[in-house]
């Protein structure tokens, strides 16, 4: 079984991990879980002023800030995981990864950093659901 966890460092990421920690049966059949996070691209008119290496370092730092607590949580539980970060629009990055990786299940929060409680789901989750055929387990 292949499971993809989409994380963004918002409270929903932790809720998703907490749910998995109390429902390990869900990830038990997966040899490893794949974890993905997307870093929004720096606008073109800004990158013109900054050298490539610095921009890349920025992307790496942003991704690491999100991944680090996730990795620590996972390693403490001795689950196996692989980590992917990609620069781009979150919905596109996640949909593409889920489809191309032929995942059986995608897990993500109902919302992210810009959560508005009254909505059913946030824009990224809605767009992923619109464009991606993978069944999506949504954690509120």
């Amino acid at each position: 079984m292949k499971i993809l966890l989409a994380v963004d460092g918002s409270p929903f990421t932790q809720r998703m991990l907490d749910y998995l920690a109390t429902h390990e049966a869900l990830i038990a059949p997966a040899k490893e879980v794949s974890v993905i996070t997307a870093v929004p691209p720096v606008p073109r008119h800004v990158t013109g002023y900054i050298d490539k290496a610095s921009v890349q370092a920025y992307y790496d730092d942003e991704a690491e800030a999100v991944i680090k607590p996730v990795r620590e949580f996972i390693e403490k539980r001795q689950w196996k995981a692989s980590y992917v970060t990609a620069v781009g629009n979150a919905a596109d990055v996640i949909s593409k990864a889920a489809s191309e990786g032929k995942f059986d299940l995608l897990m993500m929060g109902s919302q992210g950093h810009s959560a508005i409680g009254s909505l059913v789901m946030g824009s990224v989750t809605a767009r992923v659901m619109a464009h991606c055929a993978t069944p999506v387990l949504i954690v509120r």
Partner: protein
Amino acid sequence: MKILLPVDGSEHSLDAVRHAIHLVKQGLDASFVLMNVQEPTYLYEMVLAPSADVLERVTGAAGNHSIEAAEDLLSQADIAFEREVVSGEPAPTIIETGERYDCDAIIIGARGRGAMRSALLGSVSQAVLQRSPVPVTIVKTGQTHWQADTPDAGASE
């Protein structure tokens, strides 16, 4: 873990069951509660024109009928399940049933009987997603990867 599978008799809603079966074949250890909600018959309908349709709802036959195809799928896959046919407003009843059975998750089709082409997510699925105390897996229709779930289709991942 225990998973709630609401179906409404539509082909769309069966895709949730197919996804559940696929996960079990991939090694998931879970038990299932298959359920259908019938909207309640109103006294008005019963008194005025007890058509076969109304009576079917009253006797729960419609509920049983709606759940049949899903039961067949699970039985063919040799998966044990509990079943529940309930009367009430769909979304709150689904959630209440999930709580009653102490379910850890809900797997539901993106759309069901009232599917409109333009709708991303049907009204019941949306309402369940909004109010569910447990994670909800939304399964879109037209999935094909579980068609590979035959013994000679090769190993998964």
